[in-house]
């Protein structure tokens, strides 16, 4: 598994995510969500890459994950930017600092697959087993 895979839902869409560490899990979740939103279909270099610092505190690991993924929606809805790279500089149970690299949406390079409205808490429970983290995340579209 590439760290995530798309899963079926009657009305919406989701991903089954895993990672060998909490950091890797959060990065894979972001990559998975981005893959549901965008398809890269051209070889034109990404124009005007920008780096966006993210600093989040939450009440639970699940809320932290939701807020982290919501940054991808925010970048797209507000700035028309496609999140293409994800770094976690520091992550603790309910806090993280990271950077999202984004580029301007370019119809020659990107196809919009799904316009995700929200990251839901539906069935969201981050499991840890043998040091590996996993969860199913459902998105409202």
């Amino acid at each position, binding site marked *: 598994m590439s760290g995530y895979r*798309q899963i*079926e*839902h*009657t*009305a*919406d*869409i989701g991903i089954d995510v895993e990672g060998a560490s909490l950091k890797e899990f959060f990065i894979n979740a972001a990559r998975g969500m981005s893959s549901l939103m965008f398809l890269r279909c051209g070889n034109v270099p990404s124009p005007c890459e920008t780096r966006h610092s993210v600093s989040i505190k939450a*009440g639970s690991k*699940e*809320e932290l994950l*939701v*807020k982290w993924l*919501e940054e991808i*929606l*925010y970048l797209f*809805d*507000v700035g*028309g930017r496609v999140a293409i790279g994800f770094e976690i500089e520091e992550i603790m149970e309910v806090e993280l600092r990271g950077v999202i690299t984004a580029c301007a*949406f370019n*119809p020659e390079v990107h*196809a*919009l*697959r*799904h*316009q995700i*409205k*929200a*990251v*839901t*808490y*539906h069935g*969201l429970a981050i499991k840890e087993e043998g040091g590996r983290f996993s969860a199913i995340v*459902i998105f*409202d*579209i």
Partner: protein
Amino acid sequence: MDALKIQKINDYSWRIPRFGDMRVDGIVFASERIIKDILKDQSLGQVANVATLPGIVRASYAMPDIHWGYGFCIGGVAAFDVQEGVVSPGGVGYDISCGVRLLRTNLTKSDIQEKITGLMRELYCQIPTGVGAKRKDFQLSKYDEKKILEEGARWAVSKGFGTARDLDFIEDGGVFNGADPDAVSTRALERGVNQLGTLGSGNHFLEVSFVDEIYDSVVANALGLFKNQVTIFIHTGSRGLGHQICSDYIGVMLKASQKYGIKLADKQLCSAPIRSPEGESYLSAMAAAANYAMANRQMITHWAIEAFEKFLGLGPKDHGIEIVYDVSHNTAKFEDYMVGGNIKKLLVHRKGATRSLPGQPVLIPGDMGRYSYVLVGTEKAVAESFGSTCHGAGRVMSRGAAKRACRGRDVVRELKDKGITVIGASRETIVEEVSDAYKDVTDVVDVCQEAGISRKVARLWPIGVIKG
């Protein structure tokens, strides 16, 4: 949910008897055929979960287009005592005040049939549908965005997008009372400021259709509908602003649920007492989002009319485009109902359900390849479903399953062969929205008719659809 059982009440309604933490029964409006589909997913479990919330009155209801959602199922209705009950963002949905507007015209199918492709292209140009699509001639200021959150469709009319008459044909007169822009986060405002007047994606659409069947000629006449008449359906909601408000308040309500000791069968049922700071704050933000949604549909209506005028070369007296009605599916409203012999004010959550008051038009879109319906509300709905009925067809197939079912098929060509021209921003979305993925809305509407919670007036058939 192993203890969940269903009992048939009659041919069109079923009971989930109370068990466990349920405070009331669940009641599902469905036929034998539809209940078999419903049993395939978790929606009945969600109906039972809603019944555990404090202050719920009479029953946790579900309409025949029910399918599983977040906390509440889609197609769920639940009313709460204002003093003892709770409000839950999950009972309204992420797309606050997603709704449908129907426009009538003076035109008949034969007036536009040969020109439909050009007309749909013009509509697609005029109404922002794709990613980042915006009208160059419209820029919303932050000041005006806040005014819209308070004034709804009234703001749009005051700026020349429509007429004062329009407001009489929108639920609540086009303005949801109690809105407070200060209850809306900066992030929600940022997401909304560039999206007013846009259709959105997924199951949102603008559809040009014609009236192909009249069931109640008296009501149809009163609504200005006649056979072969061209009509326009618009389905959209509060866009990123509403979605963000819901997300923001789910965070608030998760904490509030702990604070007020509300036991949650599902995190997405997180809630707060209606008469609490958190509850009142959510309701005022929800009202703001509802106003945004009604203004959104008002803007799109204005540009749709411009598209008709430009492409067909007709003026208002010729095309006669007017609003029949505008309804919302995802809201929580304070309404009065008879409970235990007394009139009580309740907070009625409708998530993927339409208000169905006596004499009120009820607009039920089907999928893009099949019919839609105009119905009218009934006294029986007031008595038996807190004035509620279905909202649409309801999905039966995941998007992945829809894509697999369409492998090797040209869905756009199939629709064209049926006389329906589809233009969409995303081919993937068009495939995912194929008719196979939805219940037949006729089955849904017939259950509501037989159950007496709404009554058929007319059927509409699509000839053109634009999708984001």
